[in-house]
Structures are given as structure tokens and as C-alpha cells.
């Protein structure tokens, strides 16, 4: 599952940039021009783009973990193949995005180390539990669906290598979404037990899907560097609304109920009621909905989510277990052996 960066940016620092170069750069970007790694760019642009690509790459390889845990339990030959291929795609996306970030000045190894030591972050949605096969279906449908909406807009960004990577990734994400949709439809047209499995998982994933796009917009959202320099082309709230407009009716059409849920510390639902605000607003043409639990969102972001420690521990385990292999064959390079 891909999850692009909603990286927190507080970069005001363009003061040191040459004003003439900055003006030319900003005009170029505003007119839809692309920025390539060797072009002049404000240092703040480079920093921000690096963080965005790195965060996105981290999200891909951490995102591989919850689904990866279900590969060996997938319930048919086809699902087993598809899930393995999907998780492999996420790793591939991570690989491509680390290349993008690397061109901006940070080595892959430094990025992997920063990830496992908690210096850098990954997408928050991977800190939620995935206790059943139903969760696998919902992740592929809802989270990949959210990622497609988000990344569809990121593909119109300004940094050439990132948007080209995004276009490639988006084609694969479209497959992931179809795979998710097919799994959800299969469960929802199956036995009562399967429908319950799907509903329970949906209850766990609806909120993280809404929160996927990041916190509510600030008043100056469009003036902030990420949007001014066209790294992001849509606001969090615009994307969230688009998601609800697309997925609320689709979920209900399958027979799923959209609930507002209370969860315990392990991320499991302890009580729920149908979303009282959910309706198509005739005036705006948008679906009204209850906001996700933002207190929980910020708690998870701060590292206190149901699975933060587990995900990071597994990632660290993998890094440490593989260290002798990298030492033996890479010798500072970043490619695996391909000849013999």
C-alpha cells in the first residue's frame, strides 16, 4: 500500500536564496515547469522534497509489513500470489523512491538507519492493527484507494523524478485497488461469517482512511512551501472529501455500514454507532461525515499507537539480520549481485 507524505514542513528559510534565481524558479514552477535534480532550486525546496520522498519511501517499506504478515495465510492460490505480488510492489516502490531521495543528497543506508532509529517517520496508517484476513481486504481497498487519490494529485507536482516515479507507482496502485475491491466484494457476497469479517475490519479501517490525508487544512495551506512550489497540488481536506464522496456510497452499496467507533489502546473497536452525520449534502454535492478521532491520530503520530513499536521493531530486526549480507557483497554499493 502506498502512502505519500504528509510531511510536516516548517521551512520559512528562503532568506538565503538568491532573490532573482528564486523568482525565476517560482515562476517556472507556477507555470507548470518541472524541476530536475541538477537544476538550481532553493535549499528549502531540496530539503522538503528529500523529506517527502524519504517519508514516502519509508512508508512503502513499513507498509509492506502488516500485509506481509498475511502472505503465508492467504486463503487461495490466487490470493496468495496476488498478495505476495502486491507487497513486492510496495518494496519496489520503496526502492524507486529511495533512489529519488538519494539523488537529492542522502544515501539509502542513511535513510534506512534513520528509519529504524526513529529519526524519520513513515505514514501513520501503518501503526494500526491488522488482526484478520478482512483487514487485508480493507487495507487494499481503502488505504490503496486513498493512496491513489492522493498520489494522483502528487503526479502533477513539480519535481521531475518524483512525479515520474509517482506515475509508475500509480499504475500499480490501480491494480492493488482492484485486487482490494475484488476481495471486499468476495467477502460481502459470501457467507454471514465473511460479511461480519469484512464489517469488523471496515470499522477498524474507516477512521485511519479518513485520517490518511493528514490533519485538517490550515488557513494558509496554499501559501505554505509544499503547495506554493507545487509539491502538493491538493489540500488534505479536498482529498478527504473526495475520498468520502467515492467510498461512502461504494461501501454502502456492498452492504457495509459506516460507523463511528470507539477503540481501545490496541486499536480494537469497543463500541460503535452508525455515523449520524453521514448523508449526501444536496447543497454542496458532497457527502457529510463525522471527522476521524483526531486526538487518537495525534497520539499515534507521537508514537503511542497500537503497532508503532511492533512495526519499527520488525523493520529493525530485518535491517540488523541483513547487515552481514550487505557487508559481504555490497561493499558500499547499493545493488544486489546480478551476475554469477
Amino acid at each position, binding site marked *: 500500500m502506498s502512502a505519500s507524505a504528509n510531511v510536516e514542513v516548517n521551512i520559512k528559510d528562503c532568506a538565503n536564496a538568491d532573490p532573482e534565481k528564486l523568482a525565476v524558479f517560482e515562476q517556472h514552477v507556477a507555470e507548470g515547469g518541472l524541476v530536475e535534480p541538477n537544476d538550481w532550486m532553493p535549499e528549502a525546496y531540496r530539503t522538503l522534497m528529500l523529506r517527502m520522498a524519504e517519508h514516502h519511501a519509508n512508508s512503502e*517499506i513499513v507498509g*509492506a*509489513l502488516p500485509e*506481509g504478515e498475511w*502472505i*503465508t*495465510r*492467504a*486463503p*487461495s*492460490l*490466487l*490470493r*496468495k*500470489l496476488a498478495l*505476495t*505480488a502486491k*507487497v*513486492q510492489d*510496495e*518494496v*519496489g516502490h*520503496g*526502492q524507486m523512491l*529511495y533512489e529519488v531521495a538519494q539523488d537529492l543528497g542522502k544515501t*539509502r543506508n542513511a535513510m534506512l538507519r534513520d528509519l529504524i532509529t526513529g529519526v524519520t517517520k513513515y505514514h501513520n496508517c501503518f501503526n494500526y492493527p491488522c488482526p484478520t*484476513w478482512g483487514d487485508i481486504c480493507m487495507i487494499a481497498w481503502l488505504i490503496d484507494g486513498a493512496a491513489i487519490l492522493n498520489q494522483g494529485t502528487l503526479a502533477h507536482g513539480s519535481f521531475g523524478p518524483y512525479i515520474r516515479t509517482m506515475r509508475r507507482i500509480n499504475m500499480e496502485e490501480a491494480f492493488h485497488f482492484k485486487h482490494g475491491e475484488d476481495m471486499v466484494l*468476495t467477502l460481502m457476497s*459470501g*457467507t454471514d*461469517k*465473511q460479511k461480519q469479517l469484512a464489517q469488523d475490519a471496515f470499522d477498524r479501517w474507516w477512521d485511519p482512511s479518513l485520517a490518511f490525508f493528514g490533519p485538517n487544512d490550515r488557513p494558509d495551506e496554499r501559501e505554505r512551501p509544499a503547495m506554493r512550489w507545487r509539491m502538493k497540488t491538493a489540500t488534505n481536506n479536498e482529498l478527504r472529501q473526495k475520498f468520502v464522496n467515492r467510498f461512502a456510497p461504494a461501501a454502502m452499496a456492498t452492504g457495509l455500514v459506516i460507523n463511528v467507533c470507539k477503540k481501545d489502546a490496541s486499536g480494537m473497536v469497543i463500541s460503535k454507532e452508525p455515523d449520524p452525520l453521514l448523508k449526501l449534502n444536496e447543497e454542496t454535492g458532497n457527502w457529510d461525515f463525522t471527522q476521524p478521532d483526531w486526538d487518537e491520530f495525534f497520539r499515534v503520530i507521537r508514537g503511542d499507537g497500537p503497532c508503532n513499536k511492533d512495526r519499527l521493531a*520488525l523493520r529493525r*530486526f*530485518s535491517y540488523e*539480520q*541483513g*547487515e*552481514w*549480507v*550487505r*557487508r*559481504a*557483497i*555490497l561493499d558500499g554499493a*547499493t*545493488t*544486489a*549481485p*546480478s*551476475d*554469477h
Partner: protein
Amino acid sequence: MQELDQQFHNPIVNVLLCVADDKLFLGHKNSDWTGLAPILEADIAFSSLSQDDIAHASAFYELIQTITGQNPDQIAFSRNANEYLCADIVTKDDSFNWANAIARQFYCNVYEYYRLQRLSTASWTPLASLAKRIFAEQVIHVDHVTSWIKHLGKGSGDSNSRMQQALDTYAPFASMLFEAPEGIETLFEGKIISDDGCMFTEWKEHVDQVTNEAGLKATVAPVSGVGGRRGSHGAEFKESLCELQEVFSTDPLAAW
């Protein structure tokens, strides 16, 4: 499709199950590395190999279906432990140690290379053509794992000793790959498949050549005894089977 005489049905199904179950469980164990391998590029490659193996297993289950009429998912997911005919090396736990995964892959892939080569000459054409098709991909698997053996063998003193230890650990299990499936003599006598009496020697020569070049040694001797090919499995196979069947068995008749 070319008809196969009734007397060969059970023996050929045994042979096909040996191939399919080996590939299913080797793919199953290797797929667990997806997202966790030591290098991203290696992760992607190893995952592709696991997908190949699972897809190859599916193709063999489909061939079994032409004889027994059973659905491939039912064959793959719903048998009792003693009805699976894989050799236990395929499910021998690797403890997420890359050297173990490579040793297991190496012994199994080279074995599969020679097995498919023989099945490619089967007189039952559906089997021969499937084996030929899959053999082409098996060559790539062998190339890939050979590359790893050589790189780790020659990489550093540390990687050489880790690789050697893994080859030693898996060696006794490797010899059980050669346990004969029940009824295979009938297939030899009926000239359905060719006698593979010299397969261990060929396999051993191949393994020795690669390990020698890598500065490693594979100490594998032929053994006799009853094991996975006759449905007798150890605890690690049963653990893998439980994992494989975990979701499926909640409702074996449901579509997933």
C-alpha cells in the same frame, strides 16, 4: 488431452503432488521474506522467485485436476498433513537467516532442475509440455541462487562461514528430496517417465561444482528412509501447513 491409462493414475498423481507440494511450500516459505530481505533489490527478486514457485505449483495442481477432477485450491489447501508429499527441506525453518534461505533454495532449485528435465521427456505429453515450460524458468532460479552462493561464499570470511553452516544444516534434509514417490516404478516400467536412477549423482556433481567454486562444501550423502514423499512429516512442516490453512479452514467451502 492425451489420455493416460487408468493404471498410471495414482502413481502419476503422486509424482505430480511431489512437484506441486515442493513448489507450493518452498514458495510459501520464501514469500515470507517479502519486505524483510537484506537488500531491497534482493527482496524483489526473491519474491518473484516465490511467486514463480507458487504459480508452478498451481499449474501442477491443475494438471492433477485433469485426472482427479479436484479443484486446485482444494488440493492445495484442504488435505491432511500425511497427504502432502513434499520433502521436509522445503519447510525447514530459516529463522530469517538469509544464509539458511539461500542454502534451502540452492539444494531445492538444483534438484528441481534435474527433476523437471526428466519430466520434460515424459511420454504423457501434458506433463512433458508443462515440465518443459517450467524448466525454462527453473534455469533462472538456479542461476539466481548460484549467484548468491558464489557471492556469499567468496564475499568475506564471515559470509563464507555463515553460508557453510547453512549448507551443513540443510544437507541431511536435502538428501530426502530423493526419496522415491510411491508407485514410481510403475511409471518407469510403463515408460511414462524415464528412470531417474542417476539423478542424485548428477545433482551432487552440480552442487559440488558450485560450492567448490564458492569456497564451500556440501556434504550430502544419499539416504534411505521414509519421509515427506510418503506423507511422513516433521513438526516444521505441520506448522507451515497450519499457517497455510489458517484462513481457508475457517470455511473450506467459501469463496475467498
